[in-house]
C-alpha cells in the first residue's frame, strides 16, 4: 500500500525517474543504517504527512477549479442582461440610439444638400392573395424632412382577407436613421372582397444621417414591405416592444 502510494506520488513530481532512483537509494541506505522497524515507522510517518500534504493540496486545487467553473457558469448567465445594457448604450446591432425622439420631428431642420432617393418595393407572401404594389417607384427626400408615400392593396377574392405586414430597409445601417412616423405595418388590416385601399407611409430620415461617415456613400435607400395573411388566433409580437 505504502509503496504504491510512493510510486504514484513520485510519478507526479517532475524528474520522476531521477527522484525514483534517489528514493530507492535513500530507502536502501536507511534500511541498512536503522533498524527495520524504526525505518518503517519513521518513513511511514514522513510519507503519511506528505500524503496528507498532497491530499490537502489536491483538495485546495480542486476547490479552486470548482469555484472557477461555477464562476464561469454564473458569468454566462449574467452576460445576457449585461450585453443588452451595453448594446443599448453603444447602439451596436442596430438598437435604437440616434434620434428616436418624437420631439425631434418638430424641431429638426432639413439638410437640403443631401438628396436621397428612396425606392419602394412591395411583396406578398406566396399564400397571400392581395395585389400589393407601391404607387411610386421612387421619391427624392432630404434628411430632416417628413415625406409621404403610398402603396395600394387590392383584395381580388370573394372573401375578406386580413393581412399584416412587416418592412425592411436596405442598406441595413441606414435603417437606424429611417424613422416611420406612421404607416400600416404590424397591425392587422382587413380588406373586404374586391376592395382596394391606399396605404400611406409617413416617414423621415434622421438629419444625423448626413453626419455619419458610414453613410457618406449611401444615396439610395430601399423600403420594402411584405404582406402576410393573418391567421385566426395568431398573435404576433410587436417588434421593438418584446425585447426591452
Amino acid at each position, binding site marked *: 500500500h505504502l509503496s504504491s502510494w510512493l510510486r504514484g506520488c513520485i510519478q507526479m513530481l517532475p524528474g520522476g525517474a531521477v527522484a525514483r532512483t534517489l528514493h530507492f537509494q535513500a530507502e536502501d541506505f536507511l534500511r541498512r543504517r536503522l533498524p527495520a522497524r524504526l525505518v518503517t515507522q519513521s518513513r511511514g510517518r514522513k510519507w503519511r504527512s506528505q500524503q496528507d500534504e498532497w491530499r490537502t493540496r489536491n483538495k485546495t486545487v480542486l476547490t479552486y477549479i470548482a469555484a472557477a467553473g461555477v464562476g464561469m457558469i454564473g458569468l454566462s448567465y449574467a452576460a445576457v442582461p449585461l450585453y443588452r445594457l451595453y448594446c443599448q448604450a453603444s447602439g451596436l446591432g442596430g438598437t435604437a440610439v440616434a434620434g428616436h425622439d*418624437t420631439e425631434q420631428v418638430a424641431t429638426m431642420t432639413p439638410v437640403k444638400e443631401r438628396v436621397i432617393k428612396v425606392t419602394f418595393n412591395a411583396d406578398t407572401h406566396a399564400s397571400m392573395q392581395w395585389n400589393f404594389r407601391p404607387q411610386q417607384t421612387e421619391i*427624392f427626400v432630404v434628411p430632416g424632412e417628413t415625406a*409621404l408615400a403610398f402603396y395600394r392593396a387590392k383584395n381580388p377574392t370573394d372573401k375578406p382577407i386580413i393581412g399584416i405586414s412587416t418592412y425592411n430597409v436596405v442598406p*441595413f445601417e441606414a435603417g437606424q436613421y429611417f424613422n*416611420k412616423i406612421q404607416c400600416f405595418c404590424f397591425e392587422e388590416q382587413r380588406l373586404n372582397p374586391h376592395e382596394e385601399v391606399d396605404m400611406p407611409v409617413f416617414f423621415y430620415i434622421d438629419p444625423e444621417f448626413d453626419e455619419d461617415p458610414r453613410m457618406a456613400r449611401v444615396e439610395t435607400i430601399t423600403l420594402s414591405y411584405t404582406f402576410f395573411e393573418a391567421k385566426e388566433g395568431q398573435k404576433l409580437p410587436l417588434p421593438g416592444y418584446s425585447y426591452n
Partner: protein
Amino acid sequence: MSTAMNFGSKSFKPRAPDKGAFPLDHFGECKAFKDTFMKCLRDNHFDNSKCRLQSKDYLECRMDHQLMAKEPLEKLGFRDLMDPPPSQADKDSKP
C-alpha cells in the same frame, strides 16, 4: 433580411412606427387629396420637397375624417408650412 448567418454583421431590426398604424381608408374619403399629391409628385419628378403642401393637405384630411389622431402640424414636421410669413396674408396655417 435579419436572417444573415454571420455574427459580425448587423442585421436589420424593424421598429414599430412612432405613432402606430394608419387606419385604412376604406371609403376613399381622402382619395382626392392623395391623387393631388401623386400628381404633384409626378409633375415634379418625384421630389418630395416640392409636394409638402399636398402631403400636409392629405394628412389634414385624414385627421378631419378620424383616420388619424389629431396632432399639431409641427409635430409632423410641417413647421415651415405653418409659419405665417410676416408680410403676406397666410393661407397655410391652421390653429
